[in-house]
């Protein structure tokens, strides 16, 4: 069979000889219609004989090639039946030309015309098999090129991304569909759509759901490049991240509907971010909230009048970073801070000189993420509300005198990431207790070599 394939591959080469000869016959016969070139007609029979023999050979080669399994589908079938028909017609024409069929020979010009038409169609079908459908028309003025289509298909919103359709299919399109597409289906495989891909090729199905290691496609993609079965046999190979993405998709069920889950494996997450700009990492609270909330200018002015230093985080984020003045408590702080509390995300009392008791009277710190009480004296139970701010991520108690049970107030906090207790009044035992009870919180205790 291998030898048959070897000869079979000469089909596309040899097939051009009868094509040329048949066109030649068309020319000689046509010219012979003019009396001056009557002699040209004598050439026809010998040309037809050679065309017949060579086309017979080419057809045999073509049929051998079919067994190689590279081509399949309707396009092949049509070409497969038209070819031999043309061979038979050529033979018939030769016999007619020889005059062995008597009166019937007068139909030979009609037969000739039919042969030329059939040859054109057969040749075109054959060309489509090797070069792909639309090869001729692709750059015809006014036609839609591949690039236009690709651009139109790039996904925009990452909630609506389908792994196969948006991330895997384009890779197939770029690197596989030249041979395994709607136009050409080498190995009987068409990767043009998920349904067609699922149907597999001559070697069976492409993947085993949930088991990338056993999946033919992953095996073929990850063979040694020198291996005969390695895919793609020529052209740009798939990159490791592309294979990894495919294998992850197969592992998670190879579903058409599969979108991007919340917690994909880390390497997939990194790839989604790096290659497709899909950022799945946990956003800091500030980034997730800020765009909707902007305090009015008057509020900021009032804080500033009381000596608070106020900064809005950014042009697109109205949350406030506020630093308390280096004065002692003034009447009216609560009245100023209470309306601001719902906009403050960073609050710093480091420079403040006075009692913090009043702060506890302020209810609701919905967006507070960073609180610095450095160098202050605090009574925990008086500061219950602010210490229990729902999104507090960082609490700085460096050099702070702490009265009361810190652990009790922090125990329930979900988002606290960092707690600074260096040079605070907490003793070692208290600190190690905090460390034990708050395993997800980084305790900064000060640093010595």
């Amino acid at each position, binding site marked *: 069979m291998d030898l048959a394939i070897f000869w079979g591959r000469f089909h596309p080469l040899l097939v051009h000889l009868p094509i040329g000869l048949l066109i030649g016959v068309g020319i000689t016969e046509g010219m012979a219609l003019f009396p001056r070139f009557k002699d040209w007609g004598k050439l026809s029979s010998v040309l037809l004989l050679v065309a017949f023999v060579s086309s017979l050979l080419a057809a045999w080669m073509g049929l051998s090639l079919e067994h190689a399994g590279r081509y399949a589908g309707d396009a092949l079938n049509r070409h497969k039946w038209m070819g031999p028909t043309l061979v038979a017609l050529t033979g018939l024409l030769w016999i007619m030309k020889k005059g062995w069929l008597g009166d019937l020979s007068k139909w030979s010009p009609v037969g000739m015309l039919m042969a030329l038409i059939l040859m054109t169609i057969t040749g075109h079908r054959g060309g489509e098999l090797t070069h792909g459908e639309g090869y001729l028309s692709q750059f015809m003025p006014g036609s839609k090129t591949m690039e236009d289509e690709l651009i139109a298909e790039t996904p925009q919103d990452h909630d609506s991304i389908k792994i196969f359709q948006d991330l895997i299919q384009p890779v197939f399109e770029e690197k596989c569909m030249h041979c395994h597409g709607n136009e050409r289906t080498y190995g009987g495989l068409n990767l043009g759509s998920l349904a067609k891909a699922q149907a597999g090729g001559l070697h069976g199905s492409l993947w085993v759901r949930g088991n990338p290691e056993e999946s033919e496609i992953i095996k073929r993609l990850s063979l040694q490049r020198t291996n005969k079965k390695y895919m793609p046999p020529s052209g740009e190979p798939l990159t490791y991240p592309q294979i990894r993405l495919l294998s992850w998709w197969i592992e998670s069920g190879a579903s058409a509907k599969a979108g991007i889950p919340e917690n994909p494996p880390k390497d997939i997450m990194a790839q989604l971010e790096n290659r497709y700009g899909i950022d799945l990492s946990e956003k800091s609270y500030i*980034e997730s909230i800020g765009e909707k909330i902007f305090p009015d200018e008057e509020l900021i002015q009032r804080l500033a009048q009381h000596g608070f230093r106020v900064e809005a985080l950014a042009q697109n984020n109205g949350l406030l970073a506020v630093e308390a003045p280096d004065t002692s408590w003034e009447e009216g702080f609560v009245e100023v801070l209470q309306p601001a509390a719902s906009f403050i995300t960073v609050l710093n009392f480091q420079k403040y000189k006075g009692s913090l008791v009043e702060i506890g009277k302020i209810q609701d710190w919905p967006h507070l993420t960073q609180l610095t009480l450095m160098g202050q004296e605090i009574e925990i139970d008086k500061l219950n509300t602010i210490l229990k701010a729902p999104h507090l991520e960082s609490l700085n108690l460096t050099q702070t005198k702490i009265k009361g049970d810190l652990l009790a107030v922090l125990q329930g906090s979900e988002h606290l990431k960092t707690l600074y207790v260096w040079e605070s009044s907490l003793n070692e035992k208290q600190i190690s207790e905090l460390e034990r009870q708050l395993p997800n919180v980084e305790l900064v205790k000060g640093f*010595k070599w």
Partner: protein
Amino acid sequence: MSHCENQNKNYSRRDFLTKTSLGLGALTFSSFLNPMGVLGNTVPGDGILGKPHFAPKVKRIIYLFQSGAPSQLDLFDHKPILQQRNGEDLPASVFGGQRLTGMSGGQATFPMAGSQFHFSQHGESGAWISDLMPYTAKIADELLFVKSMYTEAINHDPAITFLQTGSQFPGRPSIGSWLSYGLGSDNENLPAFVVLVTKNKTGQPLYNRLWGNGFLPPEHQGVQFRSGKNPVLYLANPPGVNESDRRRQLDQIAKLQQQKYDEYQDPEILARMAQYEMAFRMQTSVPEVMDVSGEPDYIYDLYGKDSRTPGTFAANCLLARRLIERDVKFVQLYHQGWDHHGALPQNIPGQCQETDQGSAALIMDLKQRGLLEDTLVIWGGEFGRTSYSQGTLTKTTYGRDHHPRCFTLFMAGAGIKKGMSYGRTDDFGYNVVENGVHVHDFQATLMHLLGIDHERLTYKFQGRRYRLTDVHGKVVKDLLS
């Protein structure tokens, strides 16, 4: 609001220059008008952007610049192959026809030079650090190593200029100046951009244009604080002039300037008046920040014994913390002497000793005070060094030439991942093979951390809009936490 004012300032300044029609003469006149421009910015939060483009992770930066280019191959980028094949010629395929400097390009052989220093992995992150940096090794889990930095310049001055200004040619504003211009100052008594240079070091020269404002208004240039009696040159009152004399003098000058301002409405005059006032306030604020006598002994122990000697790198690290505590936006340290073309194994230990403990201590000191919540510390040089020996490789010594194709820097602090090594170089430590970070990418990432879209902080000069990253730079999102 302030945004609009600054817009006016740009136009008026240009109008002023155009109106006077003096061309270059007007330029010099303008800098003559504003000699105190050197003394930093005035009003807090008066950056051209008004507010950052998006919520910043970082408010302040300390850049520990290791001038001369430390050898990544002897400090952080561990290459066992170089040690195994020590002395063999570096394969030609590795060079790939890249340009070499004139200093080693003519060598007949390029023997691979394995580091003579022992590497081991540190911290939970398993970062490779050589024995030369024991203190840095101890804080490995706080650090983010970028091993795939690369630059375009092959010699020191263009390379430093490139890192600091985004261009190899002198004349563009330094990073700190861009930040001062974009974000303004957070401390009305100190400049937004302060520079500290280790005293008594030799090596590749440092020019003050490295912390220059380029074409930005002069109040944005970096101000160098020196150790010793006069931290800022020409700031103290001359002998015989006391504070009240100075005050009265400034008040009188202010009246004259106000008159001129009323006449011309030129905002440059206001800027100049503000700079005089700033200088006056700095007469108090600078001695205060430079006075480290109140620092407890255990802090000196943290930074190492060098830190008791003013002007050393360790002492400058301690000062950097004090400046950061006072909301200086950008503190730039320079430490010269890393240019080890020859006798590297003999010379590099001293450099490490001078910088290792101070740098690591600074990071941990910032951390224990909670300052690392919004401060970023950067440690690194202007390029890397070659994996082949410059000059003869012997059993005891080798040298390394300039190598722009890869180098390592590390960062610690706000907004970035920690305990991570990013990027990879090949087994010969010659080319970047994974996740290369170009200097402009690094700069874009810094800007991003500060809440600035690097493509949107621009300054129009000579008919073109300039930015720190020129027309390049991509934020390296992988580095962000």
